[in-house]
C-alpha cells in the first residue's frame, strides 16, 4: 500500500482549500512531475507531501505574502519561488474555470490579473 499521507495530499489537489490544488495546476501547466515540481520549488522531494497539505495562501496581497512567507520559512524554501508557483497555479485554475465561457487566448491576455504584486516578503 502506498503512503497514506501522500495519498491524502493527492486527494487534497482536488480541494481549493489546499496548496496542493495550486501546486498541481502549476505543475500541469509546466508539464512537471513530482521531481520536476520539487526542483522548481527548490524543495526536497520528501517535503512535497506536507507542503501540499498546507492551506492555500489568502488572496489579499498582505495575507498572501504573510502566508507564503510562513510556509516558506517552515519548509526552508525560497518564498519568491513558492509565490511564483502559487500565482501561476491560481491563473491556471482561473483559466480552467472560465474556459467553457470564453476563448483561451482572451483569458491568456488576462494572465496574472488580480494576483498579488511581485515583491519580496516583509521581514
Amino acid at each position: 500500500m502506498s503512503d497514506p499521507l501522500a495519498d491524502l495530499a493527492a486527494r487534497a489537489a482536488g480541494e481549493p482549500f489546499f496548496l496542493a490544488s495550486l501546486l498541481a495546476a502549476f505543475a500541469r501547466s509546466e508539464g512537471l512531475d513530482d521531481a520536476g515540481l520539487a526542483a522548481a520549488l527548490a524543495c526536497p522531494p520528501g517535503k512535497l507531501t506536507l507542503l501540499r497539505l498546507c492551506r492555500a495562501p489568502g488572496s489579499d496581497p498582505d495575507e498572501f505574502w504573510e502566508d507564503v512567507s510562513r510556509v516558506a520559512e517552515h519548509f526552508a524554501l525560497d518564498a519568491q519561488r513558492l509565490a511564483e508557483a502559487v500565482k501561476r497555479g491560481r491563473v491556471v485554475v482561473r483559466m480552467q474555470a472560465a474556459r467553457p465561457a470564453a476563448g483561451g487566448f482572451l483569458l491568456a491576455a488576462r494572465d496574472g490579473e488580480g494576483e498579488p504584486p511581485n515583491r519580496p516578503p516583509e521581514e
Partner: protein
Amino acid sequence: MRPSDPRFPSPEEGLALHVRLGGDDPVASAEVCQTYLAPLLGWLGAKYPRLDPHFRQTAAHEALMAYVQRPAGYDPGRGDLGAYLRMAARGDLLNLLRREGRHHNNRSPWPAVEGGEVAGNLSGEDEEPSGKLIKDEEAEACRAFLSDVEQRCTEEERRVLRLMVAGERRNAVYAEAIGVTGLALAEQNREVKKVKDRIMKRLTRGGPKHE
C-alpha cells in the same frame, strides 16, 4: 477502546493545533494531517481489522479533510480532538460502507467482513465503559487546559482565543473583537496578528506534553 500505537496526541496538543488551524497559520492543516492520520488509521485498523484497508484509509482521509476545512465543527469544550476525529472517521466509514452496499445492490460488504458487528460498532459511541471514561478524562483535560490558558490571557486575548477555538477565520471579526476596526485594513490585520501570536505563545508554553 483505548487508541493504540501510534499514539494520538494529548488533548492539549490537539487544542493547540485546533487553535492554530482556526487562526491564520497556513501550515496547521498539514500538521493536523501528519499528526492524526497514522493514529486514526491505527485505531480503525484495530477496531475493524477485517475491513478492506482502502475503506479505512478513505474514511480517515475524509474525516481529516472535512475537519481542516471546517474546524468550527469541533467544539473543544465537548472533548478531545482525537475523539472527535475518531467519531468522524467512524461516521465516514459507515457512510462509505452504505454507499458501497448500495453500489453492489444487496451484496453489502460489511456484515460479512465484520461478523455483523460493524453496524453496531459504527452506529454509536465506544461500546466499552473504559472507552467512555477515557474520553471523559480527555474532555476534562481539554477544558482544564483551555481554562488555564484563558486565565493567563487579558480580556482582549480571551475574546480572540474564543474566536480561534470556534474556528473563526475572518479577520474582520477579530478586528471587531479587539476594537481596531477604525484603523486601515493592513493595520487591523497587523494588530490582530499580534494578539494571535501572543495567544499561540501562551498555548505552546502552557501545554504540558503528553506523558
